[in-house]
């Protein structure tokens, strides 16, 4: 009832909307979703450009490049050669933008906002105002993070994990001055945004489901968004406290993370702090964060694979179970990032055990995806291509996790390119593929237009070839012993001849693929923006899908459904049900006499 009354209010507002309240300070979840998408696309592009800049340095160390001097100028790329501190700055901001701004804010922000009310049958989010606040805080934090690239002492340079003391001491690296202050400020605001958003998602899912939308009738997208939001609410405050303690160490002379330090010839009086404490706090967020990034992508792809295979998702309850299991386990595995910090080895053993347990629900998910495809009738929309690609990257990146989770093996490859390969494939590629899949699939819902499929095909094939070409060889770079975050490997000439040659050769191959993959994204951008303005008009249910969002009118209305809210009678995966005429049955269709619900 509350939902209906809420919707009625909005219906009234609808007639008085000005440009500002409709497009800028909008409280409508669909518009906020689009705002998140556009901000994230911008941040993602910046992050990608930064990666191309440092990949050029890695492939051709010490060679002058006009491309570098064009973007970085004389200060950070004197004579077209990248400065070694700026290299770390680029790496740091690349990681931060990708993990937090594109794949947390962007992915969750776009699709949780767009899909939660539409798929559960609600007029809007529980609090439209908080939702708007969440976006504008995200926007503000994006602005601060972006601006930190342009200050004189450079952006944060301590890696996206900003371990103190490096991040606490401006004497240690130039980016730990104003750049780090801006990083911490931006992230503090980002966390506030994320918390407000997550609380809103949880409340909306739990309270505003329409009649008949039982928890066990929710699409897997909603399950994924719900668990993601819960992970965010429980883990982000810990990062916030870690960041605040770091801020105090930097400005107020406290010693949470500092002890016995002499830096740049200056003896500090801090005694008794522990840098390892920061790592515990950071990874208590950091590991759930991996799943905050990944679960929405898995949820989106579940929906897309089921729709386009014209088959129910296999093992719906097992899928929910594995999302919950992954969510729970993600809180007790953070120590696997810290096997070489000098942590008690017994504690290490415990983390080995819990971490490897995650492989079980992950395996279940993979096999369920495979069985969903089996004997399906697959239609290749660009979204479907990316969803299939996601399953492949989830497998390829996931299996190497088994090696990294095993402490005895981890010490041999910890912090090498093997790790870089692992998380870029399993987290980066999978989540980005999930996001692309989502954009292609729900674009008609967002903009009322269709994207061009053939350009989508070109985009997908360039992206998967390019991205695998970048990240797969990195396994071999890592196994050859190359540490990550190194500015120049050529100083290791003489360090075991073969490995040296190999690292240099592979770095060139990787950079070439990176440039190809980056150019491929132009196809996507072109398709996205041209389709927004000139795309073919979308029909109401272009993919012949069961979920509720496709029962709303193409032209957005405030409150989503012009009349009554729809009533749900069945789960969302009745595709190709025997004895039915159509190969899909929307959730609003009542059960036929004698029909069993899945």
């Amino acid at each position, binding site marked *: 009832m509350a939902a209906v009354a809420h919707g009625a209010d909005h219906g009234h507002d609808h007639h008085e909307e000005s440009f500002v309240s409709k497009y800028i300070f909008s409280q409508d979840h669909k518009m906020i979703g689009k705002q998140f998408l556009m901000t994230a696309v911008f941040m993602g592009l910046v992050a990608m450009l930064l990666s191309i800049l440092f990949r050029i340095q890695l492939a051709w160390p010490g060679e002058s490049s006009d491309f570098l001097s064009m973007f970085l100028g004389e200060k950070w790329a004197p004579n077209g050669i990248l400065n070694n501190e700026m290299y770390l700055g680029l790496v740091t901001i690349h990681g931060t933008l990708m993990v937090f701004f594109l794949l947390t804010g962007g992915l969750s922000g776009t699709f949780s906002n767009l899909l939660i009310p539409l798929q559960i049958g609600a007029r809007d989010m529980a609090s439209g105002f908080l939702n708007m606040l969440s976006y504008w805080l995200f926007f503000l934090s994006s602005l601060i993070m972006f601006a930190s690239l342009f200050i004189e002492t450079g952006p944060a340079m301590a890696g996206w994990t900003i371990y103190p003391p490096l991040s606490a001491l401006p004497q*240690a690296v130039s980016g730990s001055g104003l750049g780090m202050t801006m990083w911490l400020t931006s992230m503090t605001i980002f966390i506030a945004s994320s918390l407000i958003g997550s609380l809103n998602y949880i409340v909306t899912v739990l309270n505003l489901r329409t009649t008949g939308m039982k928890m066990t009738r929710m699409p897997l997208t909603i399950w994924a968004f719900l668990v993601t939001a819960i992970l965010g609410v429980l883990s982000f405050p810990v990062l916030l406290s870690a960041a605040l303690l770091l801020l105090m160490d930097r400005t107020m002379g406290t010693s949470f993370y500092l002890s016995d330090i002499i830096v740049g010839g200056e003896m500090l009086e801090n005694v008794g702090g522990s840098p390892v404490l920061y790592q515990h706090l950071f990874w208590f967020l950091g590991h759930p964060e991996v799943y905050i990034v990944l679960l929405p992508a898995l949820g989106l792809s579940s929906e897309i694979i089921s729709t386009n295979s014209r088959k129910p998702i296999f093992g719906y309850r097992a899928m929910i179970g594995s999302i919950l299991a992954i969510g729970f386990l993600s809180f007790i595995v953070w120590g696997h990032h810290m096997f070489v910090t000098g942590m008690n080895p017994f504690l290490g053993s415990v983390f080995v055990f819990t971490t490897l347990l995650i492989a079980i629900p992950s395996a279940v998910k993979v096999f369920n995806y495979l069985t969903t495809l089996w004997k399906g009738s697959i239609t*290749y929309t660009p979204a479907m291509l990316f969803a299939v690609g996601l399953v492949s990257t989830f497998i390829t990146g996931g299996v190497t996790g088994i090696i990294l989770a*095993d402490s005895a093996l981890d010490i041999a490859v910890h912090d090498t390119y093997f790790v870089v390969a692992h998380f870029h494939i399993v987290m980066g590629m999978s989540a980005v593929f999930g996001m692309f899949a989502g954009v292609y699939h729900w674009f008609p819902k967002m903009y009322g237009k269709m994207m061009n499929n053939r350009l989508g095909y070109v985009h997908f094939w360039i992206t998967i070839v390019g991205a695998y070409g970048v990240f797969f060889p990195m396994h071999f770079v890592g196994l050859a012993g190359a540490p990550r975050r190194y500015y120049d490997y050529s100083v290791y000439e003489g360090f075991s001849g073969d490995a040296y040659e190999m690292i240099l050769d592979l770095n060139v191959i990787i950079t070439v693929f990176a440039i190809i993959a980056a150019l491929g994204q132009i196809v996507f951008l072109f398709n996205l923006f041209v389709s927004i303005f000139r795309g073919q008009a979308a029909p109401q249910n272009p993919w012949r899908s069961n979920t509720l969002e496709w029962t709303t009118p193409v032209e957005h209305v405030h409150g989503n459904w012009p009349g009554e809210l729809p009533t749900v009678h069945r789960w969302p995966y009745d595709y190709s049900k025997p004895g039915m005429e159509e190969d899909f049955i929307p959730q609003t269709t009542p059960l036929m006499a004698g029909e069993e619900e899945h």
Partner: protein
Amino acid sequence: MINKLVILIVIVLGVIGVAQLVRLNELSRKHSGRKEENIPNRDNKLNANLMLVFMIFFYAGFIWLMLKFGWTGRGPAASTHGVGTDWLLNLNFVIIITVFFLTNTLLFVFAWKYVKRPGVKAVFFAHSNKLEAIWTVIPALVLAVIIILGLRTWNDITDESAPEAERVEVFSWQFAWKARYSGMDNTLGAYDYKLTTAENEFALINKANIDAARDSMSYGQIGSIKVLEETLNNPNVIMSVEEREKLTNELAVKQRLHRLLTQMGITHNDSLDVLASNDFFSDTLVLLKGQNYEFTFRSKDVIHSAYFPHFRAQMNTVPGMETRMKFQPIYTTEEMRKEMNDEDFEYILMCNKICGGSHYNMKMPVRVMNAEQYYNWKVNQTTYNGKTYFGYDADPANLSAAEKAEQMKKREALLESYKAIEASLDTEEK
């Protein structure tokens, strides 16, 4: 100028070309009545076939990388536990590569085979408890094996060293490494970071060092309490409010540190000074083949990580906290050169935790020697208090005949013990 003009023209032409393409696409769509939501069978088929083609190229690329670069470019493991680690790594690789091929093949083959065909309906297959149980239990069993084997190796690696293991400290700072050997007593002398001076870079504790550190803090040439006070109290020095505040803070910090140093001097137990006295330092980490080493790590400024790729060993160095690790090298540098077929091969210690601008270049050579070489290297070291390794005066002219004979005897014993250590490794192998 002409370059820029050309670029401008290319951009303009590009934009025009793109706009025309868009219009062409719109027109053709209108003409044919094609709708984006209806995917033509031709497109479906093309993508399905590409899935298979992609799989083949993906696998071919993997196999090419493996043939060209091998499983590991680092060469054979050069430590006892490293051999075990590599064995386990290979076993894990066999498992995960099998899973990788199996599941990816299923994925791409299904993606190719089950593409939409006119008249064929998808099979409604929503769940099967039996299947789901199978793919829960099988991974669980495989993981149980992986966990058990992994933890067994982990316990071996992190176990305490035997008491006779040689103790070596590795000290790190931006951007260099240095090793401290425990000397004949096999005990490292204590340290305190407040004692760091140009003459005492390892901050070792002894009476003289405490006095020197305190004095340099009070009366040193640069930045001492005396200098700061003089500057602040000199009416002729003009400085901004911020500068004055900064110097005042610095003075306060120095005064507090000075008090701590004074306390340390009062409570100091002189009898412990001897522990540090026979320690010695090296810029190269020199090791004996077959010797068990117990390493402790220390950092002066930020976190670094001591990464020994060839020994399959790694440990962070953390300011304010001591970390440890042990390993036993099994090939001398010369043996490894033959093994790797590379005359210039050197073992290396690299920094593997981001630590600042020159992180990439923070390295220390590691040399593994045979008994004779190691003995020669050791007996030529001068200890912290300026004596020979055995504690005698460094100048042989000052030694009595009896002392010379004594030292000679100790030398022989040392060489014998090193030979025994090297030999024990060979018998272990056999």
